[in-house]
Structure formats: C-alpha cells, structure tokens
C-alpha cells in the first residue's frame, strides 16, 4: 500500500461503512438463524406467541424428521417401556416409532442425482471447454451462445415435452432421467466457466509437451487438466449446488423413487398442518452443506454466478 492515496477512505468513513454493512448482514442472517433455531424447538415452542428467542433445546424436530410415529393405547405403552432416548421423546405424546420417514431416502436421492449430474457435466464440460479454448471450431461463438441460450427457457416450458419424452422412454421418476436432465441444464455453466479457466492456462505448456512427442490427448490430460484443477473443482461445486437446489423439474418429474429433498421438505406434515420443527430440521441439514461450500468458494463466487463473464 502506498503511504497516501486519494481513494483511501478516512477512519470515520470506514467506521460508518463497516457499521452499516454489519447491520445489514445481521438482519439478513435472522431468517437463517431462525431456521436453525426452530429445528431445536419443541412444536409448542415453535408456534408460541410471542416468538421465543430463549427456549429449552430439544431434538424432537430431528426425531420427527427421521421417523414415522403412531399413537398407541395406554396398556401397550405401559407394557413396552421406551428403550432409547428418541423413543422416550415421542412417548411424551403417547406415540411409538414405527419406522423411518422418507427424509433419509430423499436426501440420498439429492446426493446421488447431485453427484451424478455434477460428474457428467464436468466431464463433458471439460472436453468441450478445452476444444472451444484451443481449436478453431467453425461457428464457435454461435455454438457458445447457443449453449448459453438454453438457460433462458423457463424450466416449465421444456418440462412439458420432457415429461412426455420421459414417459415414453420410462425415464420419469428415475435417477438416470434426473441426472441426464440436470446435466443438460448444468452443462452451459460448466462449459462457460471451464473455458474461462482453460483460457488462462498458457498454451506454451501444451506446445512444449507436443514438441516433446506427446499426443494431443496426453498433452490434454497430463498438462492441461492438472493446471485447471482449481477451476474444475470450483465448477463442480457450482454444478452440485445447482442440482442440490433445483425444484421445478424435480417437483414435476419425480414423485417417489427419485424425488429429491426440495420438493419433499415442504410436505413434512405433523398432526395439525406443517410440523415446523421437523421442517426446519430438514431444511437445516439440507442447507448447511451449501453454506459450507459457499464459504469455501468465496474466491470463485463471482465467476460462478456470472458464467465466467465477470472475473476478479
């Protein structure tokens, strides 16, 4: 830093700016803090008036999230004392646990479909991005724009024929169908981002490798791929977050076997309407990984959200 700079704000300016930004950050965090807190409330605490900031934390929400329960007679309850801590929690309501809920399966579906489509998008995206970056492909600008324009369609608009197509091919409500679909949606992001990253790798490395007698292919995976690794990982995380968060296609094209968590979480029902602690617990478990990824991705965030159009 230079000793004096005209753009360096004064101490007071910094203090004012800092206070305002921190105030905004704290306000914007309230809903997220509330989601996490509600997950640890009892149903009564969750819907108390006024809203409770201080409360006795309980794992009830999480127990309800992962189990299905049923009411039992007093005789049955007396004859079968609770054996585990979670069994004890549901006993307060004269209930017993009869089995797992569907949340675990839905979460697993999100993982399978997320990772499957991420792997495919990055795999295909790296190849295409390398070709666009290094070879003169006829109409490459048009092709790249075409790839981007696929993002302008409202998902519902393509959902109609995809729904019909999948019905004929037997792909509706299958993991494979969703993986292919999310790959098609993600590939534009992957190609654009990766092209940006590969453009930044000097060509001289490859040329040197080619002169050393490497084939194109070898030069690509022994020289370019290791160089582009950071970009590949960042791109993969973006694709993963997109598939993880996607709702429109998921709600229209899956209903059971391949249903992911976002369409499922809002349907978690308690005795009287939505079981908010369980919903919040499900949301917390679902949102936390993304929060962690976001913090890890800080440096590449800007690129990811602008398809590589803006780089720091």
């Amino acid at each position: 830093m230079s000793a004096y700079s005209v753009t360096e704000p004064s101490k007071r300016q910094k203090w004012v700016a800092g206070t305002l930004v921190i105030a905004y950050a704290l306000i914007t965090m309230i809903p997220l803090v509330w989601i996490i807190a509600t997950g640890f409330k009892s149903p009564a605490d969750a819907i108390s008036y006024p809203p409770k900031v201080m409360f006795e934390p309980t794992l009830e929400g999480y127990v309800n999230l992962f189990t299905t329960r049923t009411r039992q007679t007093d005789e049955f309850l007396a004859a079968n004392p609770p054996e585990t801590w979670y069994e004890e929690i549901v006993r307060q309501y004269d209930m017993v646990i009869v089995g797992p809920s569907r949340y675990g399966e839905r979460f697993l579906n999100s993982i399978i479909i997320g990772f499957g489509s991420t792997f495919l998008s990055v795999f295909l995206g790296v190849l295409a991005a390398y070709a666009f970056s290094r070879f003169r492909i006829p109409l490459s600008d048009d092709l790249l724009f075409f790839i981007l324009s696929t993002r302008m369609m409202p998902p519902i608009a393509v959902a109609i024929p995809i729904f019909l197509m999948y019905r004929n091919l037997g792909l509706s409500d299958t993991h494979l169908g969703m993986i292919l679909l999310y790959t098609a949606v993600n590939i534009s992001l992957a190609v654009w981002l990766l092209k940006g990253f590969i453009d930044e790798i000097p060509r001289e490395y490859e040329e040197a490798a080619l002169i050393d007698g490497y084939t194109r292919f070898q030069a690509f995976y022994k020289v370019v791929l290791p160089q582009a690794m950071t970009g590949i990982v960042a791109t993969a995380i973006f694709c993963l977050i997109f598939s993880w968060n996607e709702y429109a296609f998921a709600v229209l094209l899956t209903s059971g076997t391949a249903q992911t968590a976002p369409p499922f979480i809002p349907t978690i029902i308690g005795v009287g309407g939505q079981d908010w602690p369980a919903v919040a617990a499900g949301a917390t478990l679902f949102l936390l990984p993304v929060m962690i990824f976001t913090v890890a991705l800080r440096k590449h965030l800007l690129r990811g959200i602008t398809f590589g159009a803006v780089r720091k």
Partner: protein
Amino acid sequence: MTDTAMDKLAQRTPPRVARKVRGLSDRAIAWLFVGPTIFLLLAINIFPLIWTIYLSFTNYRANRLNREVEWVGLRNYERILTDSDIWLNMQATAHFLFWTLFFQVLIGFALAYLINKKFRGNDLWTTIIVLPMMLSPAVVGNFWTFLYQPQIGLFNYIVAFFIGADPSSFEMIGSVTLAPWAIVIVDTWMWTPFIMLICLAGLRSIPEYIYEAAEIDRASKWRQFWTLTVPMVLPFLMLAVLFRGIENFKMFDLVVQLTGGGPGSITELASINLKREAFEKWRTGYSSAYAVILFVTVFGLASIYVKALNKVKER
C-alpha cells in the same frame, strides 16, 4: 495457432513419426470433445423445444393418451393473446420484476459501495451477506411462510413491533394487497447479494489514477461519484440486471412455495400460471403455446438489452 507449430514439426520429421506425434488429428479431437455436449443439449433442450412448438399448434392433452391429436393452427395463440387472465399474470410478473430489480439494484449497489470502503473484516461480512443467494429457493421460500404467519411468525411480530400494530392484525401472504410485496421482500433478501457482488467487482476494477487525475482537476467528491464511479460500474450493473431479469422472468420455485400464486391469483407469475395450465388442467397444447410466447419474449427482451449493454460498454 498450434496447428502451425505442429505443421512445422511435421515437415521436419519423417512422415511416420509425424503421424505418431499427432495421434488423432486436431479436428477429430475438437469434434470428439464438443460432440457429446452438443448432442446432449440437442436431445434434452432443443428437441423438447421443437416439440413444444409443434404441440402449441395442436389440442393435445397429456393426460389422455389415446385421444386423437388434432392440428388446430393458431387457435391456441389466439386464445392466449385474447385471454384477460394472461394479462393479469403478465402484470403480476411485471410488478415482481420491476420492484425486485429496483430494490436489489439500490441496496446491492449501496452495499457494494460501502464494502469497497475496505473496513476491517469486510471479507467475512461479505461472505455472510452472500449466503442466502446460494440456498435452495424452494426450501427457503417454504420456511418464509412460517416467518410470515400472522401472530406466531417472526416477520409479522417484528414489523408489528415497529409500527405498533397487533401482529395478528395483518397477514403478509394471505392478503391481496400485501402478498405481491411479500414475494418481493423474500426475493430481495435472497438476491440482493448477487447484484452486490457484481457491483463490487465493478468498483474494484476502477483504476486509482482516474481519481487522482480528478483530484488534481479539483473535482468534488460528489462530482467524482457521478462522473467516474457510476459510469464505470454501469456495465457491470447492467449485466447483473440482465441475469436477474432473466431469472425473475422465469421465477417459479421461490414464489410457488411462498404463495402458490395466491391469494386468488394475485401473485401468479407467468411460470406458475404455465405450470397450472400444463400440469393441473393438462391443457398441453395451450400451455405449449404459452411457453413459446414466454420464451420468445425473454429472448427478444434479452437481445435488445444486450445491444444496449454493448453500447454502454463501448463508451
């Protein structure tokens, strides 16, 4: 580029070795590498789009498998353009689009400007502010309905506390006047950081010597802001608006979970209406025509906008 280097190399080496050096020809590799991506996009994006266009000229209903599909020409389009409900949806969409962009540009730019004052710990706070935009809109939207509950909802409670009203006296998502604002609030909460990040990149891209020159010319801070800072950030800001505009025109997940288009159809944005026609009423032909109209609209508006953006960039 590399072709020429390779050619030179090939000329200097005996033919057989040259072939070995090359392996597959570059052209073959280029097509091999780009091919799968193009194929996938054709199969899952373009083919469905063409199918949508075809369906839009028919009276097909996806829930009746053995019904004869009739070609009805432009009837679907005619119906849509003369349907008063569609114009109401368009109004809801326009309201949502305008106000979300208005607030997000305002707050987003202000935040970027403040963060650019480089106070201590600004990176940490920037990361915290950015969190909402990375989360699943459907899951977050669903939880916001809980915050919006009358009486027990935190949002209503806080607002009531500040205006001194009774928290049970007003409903955000149950009222015809407030519901359109309820979705604007959540979208703004979620996506302001998007505009902020891009503006921040714009602010950081301005070289310092410009301000130094302005100082020498004795330009006031106020004048520097309007004649230097704003024009330099404008292309970035316009790009951010383009991205958000397209996204919010397609808006579905967040609003479906928040209001489901209700009360009545006051927050029924284009995508929500489309879903209702296609997957609840099963008017496949009609909704396909609607989808085509929406897509053409987005594409048209985006193209005009990009032209304007390029003009600004060239300045």
